[in-house]
């Protein structure tokens, strides 16, 4: 193979490995960002609507599946944190639904 061809191959390999590294890092950041966004609403939970609360609970459910694939310590910490905020959203949701029920 000519030197130019080798160089192209080298650049391509470099680009692929860079892409994989960035994607892995972004992937990790993505669920943490999603976690922060989902659980940051707990202070406002009482002012959220029922559909908004349902959406947050759904987000927690999908996050749970991602965190379950993480390593042991991350799983231990973040599943507990996620459970806390999810359970709180369910608690607020149920109390709102009870309020809406005709007496």
């Amino acid at each position, binding site marked *: 193979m000519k030197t130019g061809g080798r160089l192209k191959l080298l650049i391509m390999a470099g680009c692929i490995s860079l892409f994989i590294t960035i994607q892995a890092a972004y992937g990790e950041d993505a669920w943490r960002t999603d*976690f*922060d*966004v989902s*659980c*940051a*609403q*707990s*202070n*406002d*939970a*009482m*002012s959220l609507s029922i559909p908004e609360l349902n959406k947050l609970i759904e987000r927690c459910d999908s996050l749970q599946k991602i965190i379950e694939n993480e390593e042991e*310590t*991350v799983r*231990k*910490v*973040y599943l*507990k*944190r996620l459970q*806390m*905020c999810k*359970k*709180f959203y*369910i*608690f607020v949701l149920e*109390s709102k639904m*009870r309020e809406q029920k005709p007496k």
Partner: protein
Amino acid sequence: MRKIFFVVPILLVAVGIAWAQGGMKKKKPLPFEFGSVTINNYSQQAGMPPVVFDHWVHRQNYTCRLCHVDIGFGMIAGSTKIRSSDNMKGYFCGTCHNGKTVHNKKIIFESCAKEYSREEYKRCTKCHTLERSAAKEDEFYRFSEKMPSERFGNRINWEVAEEKGLIKPVDYLEGVSSKKSNLKVNPDFAIKTKVEGMPDIIFSHKKHTVWNGCELCHPDIFIGVKKGTSKYSMVEIFDGKYCGVCHEKVAFPQTDCQRCHTKPPQG
């Protein structure tokens, strides 16, 4: 034979007293011991003494919420099952105890290490220790001297200490805590007592949320949301349920009746 009738009742009485003392009477913790938690899930297996965690050291600097929600420590001693590897990865104690984090211009010592020298072992014994430390006791009394006093527990009124700005507990850790909006605090409400003449309890959400946020108490500790739907009894609270999850173990003990029963009876 006659001796038996004399000795047996005495023995029974002695055994009864010994049982009553061991099985019923709890040792009242000293002010510096109040809120101490012994964690021994894996320490002794690893040839280390258990960890004795002092709440008073930590609560002067951090809110309950920061550690029990954002860092993920359980509310029951030993329930978190912390491993040294978790700390070394920067979780649980290792979130702050990493040899890098600075608080009050001091670097917080690193919590665990795979290998350590004889000199470094001294650092391990800052947490892994069951022996009473005179230095720690002295540190507590020097700190408590500057704090507003209280009759029970640590004999420190933490609430007043915060109001006066003597302590400023941190509630947010970059890279750990989720950025939240300011909490809209629900108004205080009264909890009626069953005992005649006993003042009603005025529950202050403000006093509690400033330390705990929402999800630390709801729904795990308090499931009811509508006033009057949940009935609380002092027996259950003394048994460590509801308010008793914190009050008695870390927050002021329930023997300090007037701290909660504040509303004088009407009429």
